[in-house]
């Protein structure tokens, strides 16, 4: 079925976006990316090391993934904006996964810093995919500022706790005018399926795959879960009911009651 994800006018056939953090090696990362079928993958910007062995850029090029630089590790709008500008210079893309983190233990976004940085970067011509809290007001403000996608968390980064507030997510989705990408908190395949069933346009995950015992196997599971969840969303689930509703009709049911006993008792 032709059902592309479109962000800022660019179409992707995969609705799974991969983070590249947490992999034990470049080889393991490459195998996982291939198995995931992802066409978009995030990278961080860090000091180069003269003795670095292989580059994540080479891996992404080989597997045919578009690069999505992030501002991970930035705790202020100023640092996030500077990091985005450096990423644009390094990777020749104006796409940025914007993260402004409020606290290094819970890694939840700093809403005020996020809005400040988003406004500056959109004005500067960036295609901003904003990593957000699962807050309908913040999500609305981010899309109002011109972000190309809003990416609410399911639960804290790397926690594997899944989607803790599906009701907030439903409200975000009802008011969405840009793609909504569930980002962070996915633990296993069913979490990704739930996100897609709820109506998210895509799922972004890293740790659930890269830190799984068998990353490539989990990547394949995620690919299938995202596809299954998307199809289920499009198909429309049945309502939940407290009582049963028979799927076989009672009409035409045979009369199989026991015969009445004969009058002489035989």
């Amino acid at each position: 079925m032709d059902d592309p994800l479109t962000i800022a006018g660019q179409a992707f056939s995969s609705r799974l976006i991969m983070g590249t953090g947490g992999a034990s090696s470049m080889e393991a990362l490459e195998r996982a990316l291939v198995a995931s079928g992802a066409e978009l993958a995030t990278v961080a910007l860090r000091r180069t090391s003269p003795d670095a062995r292989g580059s994540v850029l080479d891996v992404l090029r080989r597997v045919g993934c578009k690069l999505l630089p992030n501002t991970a590790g930035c705790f202020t709008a100023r640092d996030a904006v500077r990091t985005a500008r450096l990423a644009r210079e390094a990777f020749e893309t104006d796409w940025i996964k914007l993260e402004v983190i409020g606290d290094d233990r819970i890694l939840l976004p700093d809403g005020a810093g996020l809005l400040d940085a988003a406004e500056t970067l959109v004005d500067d011509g960036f295609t901003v995919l904003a990593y957000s809290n699962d807050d309908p007001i913040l999500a609305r403000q981010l899309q109002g500022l011109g972000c190309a996608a809003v990416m609410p968390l399911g639960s804290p980064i790397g926690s594997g706790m899944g989607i803790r507030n599906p009701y907030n997510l439903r409200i975000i989705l009802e008011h969405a005018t840009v793609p909504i990408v569930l980002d962070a908190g996915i633990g296993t395949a069913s979490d990704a399926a739930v996100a897609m069933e709820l109506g998210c346009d895509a799922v972004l995950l890293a740790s659930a795959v890269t830190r799984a015992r068998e990353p490539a196997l989990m990547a394949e599971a995620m690919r299938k879960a995202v596809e299954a969840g998307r199809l289920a969303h499009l198909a429309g689930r049945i309502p939940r009911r407290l009582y049963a509703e028979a799927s076989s009709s009672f009409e035409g049911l045979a009369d199989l009651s026991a015969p009445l006993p004969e009058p002489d008792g035989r």
Partner: protein
Amino acid sequence: MTVLVNGVPTELDPGATVAAALGVAGHTPTATGIAVALNGEVVPKGAWTTTTLGEQDRVEVLGAAQGG
């Protein structure tokens, strides 16, 4: 003069450019996939060989790493 290249105090000749600091970090001025910040601000690729450094300048040489 002393400049900080990726946090490491480094002796460079007076009048050295960003390109010299890149050399210290193991890159040529034609390197791709990297970016340079001088005291927090981006130095565009086209200005690496012409931007001169001063005492105690902070040069950050950045590239892609696994993340996010």
